Each structure stands twice: as structure tokens, then as C-alpha cells.
């Protein structure tokens, strides 16, 4: 297979993976209004844990890491997702109970910096700055895949997983739970005055979003077979924010569009372009500036994103309650031909 197609499938992988990550951040920020500036930390937990449980015991491998359970796919991935979810509960109890908006964001970004330094320096946990490498590729031995065909299979598998995650997320956001989360986003004082346990719902939203983050992270370490602190600098959180703000907050199609534009086109497409002679790395810096510029342009001219949130008009249940004659009055002046 040519390098070109390998490249295309790598882009496809990141498109779907960031779609999952964007959905996770979106339920926290877009649906519930939690400014989770520590999001990439949850992605990292998912990645590290997925890697750590799928690798063999660390004794004699030259790496240091916890667990080493030789767990097969997809159980390792689920451990990654669930670990991020468990940590989100701890974080929620520290940060989410009393703090909101900018204060919450500051505490979360501080927590993510602390966690970053721990992972980067404390070797016994996840091998410190070297990170985990030689993570077994799932299905590769079962399907007798080469490195190249693994890229293709895993990119497509990620696509399937992202569709399942999309289905799960749609179920949640369309449910009364999703509605209550959006009520909290719009005005948590009103939600509390209506008897909603705001903390409990924010915790739920945090947990769901972090599970998505963990799965997205787990897929990254499986795809790359390695993961280290340079992959999740705390600033990476803002790339995910850029994905959802550019694409469209609270709109799953928008998230896919944002993932395509920001992550696929601006982060990964350019990463494979030949360097400008005499200026190594300049292209990546230009791409980073373009993301920042795009974010500013969007916030200034189209804060709702390319595909804006749709108003959830009369849920399906209404049409079965109201009779057609009741609609007739509303549709006055609208032709039906």
C-alpha cells in the first residue's frame, strides 16, 4: 500500500477519534456549561490506562508502568474509558461542587498541570517522560495484520466505534437528561429553583464526557502503539475546544465538521507536509497560529459555529398528543404544496 493511502487512513483515524473527543467535551461544555480546561488530562488517563492494562507485566521490559494485565481489546479500551470516568468523579468533588465558570476553569487547568507533571516525572506510574511504547496492537495477531493494514483496519474500526458513541450520545442529549443539562447550562440557578440537583447532573455530565475522553485516548495509544507526555501538553485541551467551537457547539454534525476542519486538516494534514527548507517545524507553528486565528474569527463572526445548535422543536411525543387540527392553526400562511 502506498504511503499516500496510509496517510489518508491516518487522517481518517484522527477525524473519528477527535469526533469522539469532541462529543465528550461537548456534553460537558456545550450541553452543561462546564468549562473543562483539564479535558486533555482525561484523554491521557484513558490512553495510559488502556496501554498499561494491555501490556504484559512490566518486569523485564525496560519500561515501568502499573498493572500490565495483558488485557485484550476491547476490554482494555473500556478500562481506559472507565478510569477517566472514575478520576472525573474525584475531580468533580474537588472542583465542581462550589466553583463555576472561570474559577472552575482555573482550578481544572491547575489540576491538569499537576497531573501532567506527575506523569512526566514519576516514572513508576506510566514510565515518566518516555511514556508507554510497544503497546500491543489489537487484532493484529488475530487477523494477521501488517503495520500498514493495521492502520487501515483500525481507522475503520475507530469509525465504527465513533458511530456507536454517536448513537449513545444522541440518546443522552435527546433525553430528558439532556434537556436538564441544557437547563443547567442556560441558568443553573433556575434549574436549582426547579428542584434539580445541579451538582448531581454536572457530575453525571462530567462522567459521561470523561468516559468519551478516555475511549478517545485509548484509541490513540492503540493506533500509535505509544503515548507520552509530549502528546498531551495541557494546551491540547484548546484544540478540542477549537473543534467544537468551530464546528458548532451542541450539534453532533457540527462536531464532526469541526473535527475535520481543525484536527484533520489543520493539525494532522499539515504534519505530513514537507518542511520549508531552512525552517524545520515552521509549518506546525503556522498551523497552530491558524487554529488560534480560526478560533478568533469564529468567536467574532459566528460564535454558534459552522453548524449551529438546533432548537429541539416539539419532540416526537408531541405529534402523538396533538391532533393535526391543532397544528393547522400554527401553519397558517405556510403553503403545503
Amino acid at each position, binding site marked *: 500500500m502506498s504511503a499516500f493511502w496510509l496517510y489518508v487512513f491516518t487522517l481518517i483515524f484522527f477525524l473519528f477519534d477527535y469526533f469522539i473527543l469532541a462529543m465528550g467535551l461537548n456534553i460537558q461544555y456545550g450541553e452543561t456549561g462546564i468549562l473543562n480546561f483539564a479535558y486533555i488530562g482525561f484523554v491521557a488517563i484513558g490512553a495510559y490506562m488502556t496501554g498499561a492494562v494491555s501490556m504484559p507485566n512490566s518486569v523485564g521490559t525496560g519500561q515501568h508502568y502499573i498493572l500490565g494485565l495483558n488485557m485484550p481489546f476491547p476490554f482494555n479500551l473500556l478500562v481506559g474509558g472507565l478510569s477517566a470516568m472514575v478520576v472525573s468523579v474525584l475531580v468533580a468533588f474537588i472542583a465542581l461542587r462550589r466553583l463555576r465558570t472561570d474559577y472552575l476553569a482555573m482550578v481544572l487547568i491547575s489540576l491538569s498541570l499537576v497531573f501532567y507533571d506527575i506523569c512526566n516525572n514519576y516514572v513508576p506510574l506510566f514510565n515518566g517522560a518516555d511514556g508507554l511504547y510497544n503497546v500491543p496492537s489489537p487484532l493484529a495477531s488475530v487477523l494477521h495484520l501488517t503495520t500498514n493494514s493495521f492502520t487501515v483496519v483500525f481507522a475503520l474500526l475507530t469509525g465504527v466505534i465513533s458511530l456507536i458513541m454517536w448513537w*449513545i450520545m444522541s*440518546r*443522552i442529549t435527546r*433525553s*430528558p*437528561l439532556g*434537556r*436538564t443539562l*441544557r*437547563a443547567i*447550562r*442556560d*441558568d443553573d*440557578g*433556575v*434549574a*436549582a*429553583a*426547579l*428542584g*434539580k*440537583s*445541579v451538582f448531581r*447532573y454536572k457530575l*453525571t455530565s462530567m462522567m*459521561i464526557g470523561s468516559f468519551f475522553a478516555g475511549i478517545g485516548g485509548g484509541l490513540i495509544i492503540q493506533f500509535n502503539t505509544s503515548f507520552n507526555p509530549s502528546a498531551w501538553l495541557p494546551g491540547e485541551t484548546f484544540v478540542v475546544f477549537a473543534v467544537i467551537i468551530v464546528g458548532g457547539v451542541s450539534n453532533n454534525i457540527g462536531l464532526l465538521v469541526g473535527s475535520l476542519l481543525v484536527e484533520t486538516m489543520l493539525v494532522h494534514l499539515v504534519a505530513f507536509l514537507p518542511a520549508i527548507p531552512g525552517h524545520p517545524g515552521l509549518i506546525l507553528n503556522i498551523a497552530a497560529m491558524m487554529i488560534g486565528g480560526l478560533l478568533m474569527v469564529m468567536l467574532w463572526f459566528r460564535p454558534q459555529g459552522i453548524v449551529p*445548535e438546533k*432548537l*429541539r*422543536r*416539539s*419532540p416526537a*411525543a*408531541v405529534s*402523538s*398528543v*396533538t391532533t393535526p387540527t391543532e397544528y393547522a*392553526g*400554527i401553519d397558517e400562511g405556510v403553503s403545503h404544496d
Partner: protein
Amino acid sequence: MTDQSVSRADSALGCQDLTKSFLGVRAVNGATFEVPRGQITALIGPNGAGKTTVVNILSGLMKSDGGTMHLESTETTNWESEKIARLGLMRTFQLSRELGGLTVLENLLVAPHDQPGEKLFNIFFRPGRVTKAEKAHVERALEVLRTYGLYELRDSRASDLSGGQKKLLEISRAVMAGPKVLLLDEPMAGVNPALIERIGGYILDLKAQGVTVLMVEHNLNVVEKICDHVIVLAEGRTLATGRLSDLRENKEVVSAYLGEVIDASAIS
């Protein structure tokens, strides 16, 4: 001090010696009153008398510095607002606080307590229960919207409504939760006379359904027309309670409401 005009047994809501300071300013300074069950009570007083602060404390939005309060027979002093709400107290806000990103219908659908569809487990494993409850809530919400004349607007974004429509939305959202006690913070402020008439009618209907209403109101014509009981607040204290006709005789009340509460000796 206790409010003798309404016995505790007849009181749906009440407070005793409530105090609340903001940066040293005593906004509420020993407010004490009882709200008779099943009646419409007006909370009146000059601007800055602490009416909204009292409403905020009673609904749990703010914590008092001192004093006690109760909802029916339950002591609710310094409870969280969500707990007070679940006990049956609903409120509206002086400046309408609609859930702007939701439709009018969704604003109402948020209100019912303990919806099966608010639990993750039910969404995936008991979808039938969720749908059934949702159907019932939608049916009821549409009925409430019809009553309050918002039916045609049910699919509009709540932030797009006019000021008066937002007031109606707030009341109907509170009604949707099936309150025992309703706190209305200036439900008729900035509303045209025809709508004032309509809102007054709605409040009377709620009373007929057995809801206890406490409303902050400046318009004494409205108070006279629909309120059974009046509480006068001035400088954070309860000045008087009783029927409006009796209170009109009370010189202290009249001067307080006209704003002449400054002690003359303090000026000279």
C-alpha cells in the same frame, strides 16, 4: 417577635427573625411573618426594604445570616434551593430568567421532579418508562401552555419571547412543577395593563386550585383586588401584617410606603 395574625397551623410558609447583611448593610433585619395557607399574600414595601432578599432566602437561593424559616411543618432554614423546591416551593424571578436556549415547551418540560428520563440507566435500559413519562409530561405541559396563552409559541426559543411572554413562561414553568407554595417576585412589573389583568386572573385560579401564593407587588390596586393578606416590609423588618384595608389606617405603613422612614431627628 412572632407574627400573631396567622397561626403556625394555618401557615404554609413563614420566617422568624431573618437577618441578612451585604457588606455590612443590613438588607434583612429581623423579618418575621407567616403566609396563610391557600391564600394570596402580598409582600409590599418601599424599594430596598429587603423584599427580594427575603424571597431569595425563603427559596434557598441565598443563605440567611440568622433566623429560622419553615415550609409547611418542615424547618427549612438554610436548605439548598433544590431541596426546598422539591418540598413544593416554586418561585419566579424579578427579572425573568427563562432558559434561553430551550424552547418554550422544553422550559416547561424541565420542571417536573424525578423524571425517569433524567436517569442514565433508564434512558438505555427502560426506554418504555421514559417515553411513557415524557408523553404524560408533554401532554400536561401543552395543557398548561394553553391555559397561559403560550401554546402557539411552544416551539419558539425562550430567549426570543417578549418581556410579558417571559413573565407568563416563568409562571407556567413554576406551575408545571405542581407547587404547593408559589413565590412570585413582581410578576406584573413592566407588564401592560391587559396582561396585568390576565396574570391576576391566573393567580386567582391557582388559589382556587389550592396553591398558596406569596407575591412581591408594588401595584396596590392589584394587591387590593386579588390579595387576601398583606405583609409590609420596611428596612428589612416586618412593619405590619393584615388586610390591606386595615393597613391603610396604619400611619407607620403609609409613611413607610411613601418613603418617609428616615428619622427626622437624624437630619436636624
